[in-house]
């Protein structure tokens, strides 16, 4: 763990630069062979032939930007959730938000819900968003109704998770083979359908949430002293917990509805940040957001390199590459105990 505040800020700045480097590297990888220099020329001097320009401006940049905003959103959401529930296992996905999104996408694909009004792509995203917001609403309502403790919060989330998973299975049971394929691909998670409007929506959601939580950074730090101590500092925990949960569910729902289920970032990135930075949320929050972006950019690069000429589903890459790293950190880190 870095002790001095200068060191922590410096480390966060380093992550920021790594993020920029990986962003460029991500732009430079892909089936059409283009070097970094050429990419930069196209971006800054608007050189390049028609096709190359279209590839860079229409595919490469949106995908890389999407990786940054989605990675940052999921990681920030995970970090907030772990702090507020004082539980290392909490992640945006363990509260059922993602399985609800999967269910929303599946009913659109199978039953053509809402297809008469909008394009299929948008209909899937909208239904996924609605379902995940509904799932968050259920968790929120049940927890605020009985003023749930952190443990009850997680258990309610798990109940919602299993409910939507079974509903998803039921939809899959009725689906035709083609639809089933569509559902499976959506569940894999993919950045390839990135467009600028989607990025604008996710990033504005991220920025609003980020500003809100940074204003409350000290309160979040205080919560990590334990429930009793936080209450003794005059923090209305139940009220604050619901506020943070609202932010988390918005962040996750908006990110997941456009890219599908990209797992594990919400757990890995905040854990690594917490190990290095400690509990000062003024720095921990931006730090884990950067780290989330970095991990998703790396996964995006790997997913493009692994199968020449095609894009491997990024959700699989994050989980497969992330899990060994995660286990390594947990098993070989005996020095600092992070959680009670």
């Amino acid at each position, binding site marked *: *763990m870095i*002790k*001095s505040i200068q060191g922590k800020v410096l480390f966060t700045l380093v992550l920021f630069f790594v993020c920029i480097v990986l962003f460029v590297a991500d732009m430079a990888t892909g089936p059409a062979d283009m070097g970094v220099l050429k990419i930069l020329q196209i971006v800054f001097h608007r050189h390049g032939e028609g096709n190359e320009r279209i590839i860079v401006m229409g595919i490469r940049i949106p995908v890389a930007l999407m990786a940054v905003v989605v990675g940052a959103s999921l990681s920030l959401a995970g970090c907030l959730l772990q702090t507020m529930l004082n539980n290392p296992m909490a992640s945006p996905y363990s509260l059922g938000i993602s399985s609800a999104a999967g269910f929303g996408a599946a009913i659109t694909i199978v039953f053509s819900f809402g297809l008469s009004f909008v394009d299929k792509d948008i209909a899937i995203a909208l239904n996924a968003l609605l379902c995940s917001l509904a799932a968050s609403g259920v968790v929120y309502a049940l927890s605020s109704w009985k003023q749930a403790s952190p443990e009850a919060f997680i258990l309610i989330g798990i109940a919602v998770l299993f409910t939507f998973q079974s509903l998803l299975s039921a939809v899959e049971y009725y689906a035709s083979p083609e639809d089933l394929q569509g559902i499976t691909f959506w569940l894999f998670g993919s950045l390839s359908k990135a467009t600028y409007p989607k990025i604008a929506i996710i990033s504005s959601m991220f920025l609003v949430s980020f500003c809100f939580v*940074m*204003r409350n*950074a*000290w*309160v979040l*730090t*205080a919560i*990590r*002293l*334990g*429930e*009793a*101590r936080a*209450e*003794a*500092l*005059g*923090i209305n925990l139940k009220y604050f917990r619901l506020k943070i949960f609202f932010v988390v569910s918005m962040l996750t729902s908006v990110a997941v509805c456009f890219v599908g289920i990209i797992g594990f970032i919400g757990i890995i990135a905040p854990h690594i940040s917490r190990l290095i930075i*400690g*509990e*000062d949320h*003024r720095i921990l929050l931006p730090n884990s957001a950067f780290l989330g972006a970095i991990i998703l950019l790396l996964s995006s690069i790997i997913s493009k390199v692994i199968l020449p000429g095609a894009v491997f589903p990024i959700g699989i890459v994050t989980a497969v590459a992330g899990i060994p790293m995660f286990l390594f950190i947990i098993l070989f880190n005996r020095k*600092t*105990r*992070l*959680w*009670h």
Partner: protein
Amino acid sequence: MALKIQNLCLGYGRKRVLENLNVVFRKGVTCLHGRNGAGKSSLLRAIFGLVNAHGEIFHNGKIIDRAFIRDEISYIPQSAQAVSNISVFDVVLLGNVFSLRFMVAEEIKEKAESILSALGIRHLMHHPVSALSGGEKQMVFLAQALIKNPKVLLLDEPASSLDIYNQIKVMKMLRQLKDLIVIVAAHDLNLPIKFSDEIVLLNNCNVVYQGAPEFFDNALVEKIYQVKSHPVCENGVRGFLYTDIVDDAFPPIQRPFPRG
């Protein structure tokens, strides 16, 4: 300067914990005694507004509200384990959590440092609080409680996990705080007699004794705690030596099923 509690009623479910409690806490250290479940912690939590209680609480004649509690009352809960990597300095700053800005003002930092020096733990400033001993942790939380310059300080069994050296140290420290109403829930009877200005004894949902520690006598201890106690007095230092429980208070435990 006084904290006046009037007609306070408090219960959990059907169980009454405090009933029509009337008590006045004055400047200085008041020790709150009573058996387990007598309502010591509940009274402190009620003053801090953490539990819903009926009744009125006045400070200098004015009913206290949320803003007063937030700005003027500090509460240290019973030593909940703090296993967190937050540095001692940050923990102290958190005492002022609602007035902290993103960049902490220099004056708040200076104040935190001066309080840490006064309590003799300035050298631990950059250590994570999880690495400290029980006594040091208690000092850190005392510093945290003092940073907002409270008018009332509530401590729930501050000495419960400390060795006798640290128990005395904490009580002496509390004694030195000037112009402050300090209310300490405690189990030990001997240190409060020496280090407190007043003793309040709770039993059966109400106050059964309030007065100077000098007049807190052995008969009362025996009656309320159902123990056999012997007064000790040597060179002007008073205390109690409790040796046994009163027999009929706890009938011998019988095994429901005989062995074998």
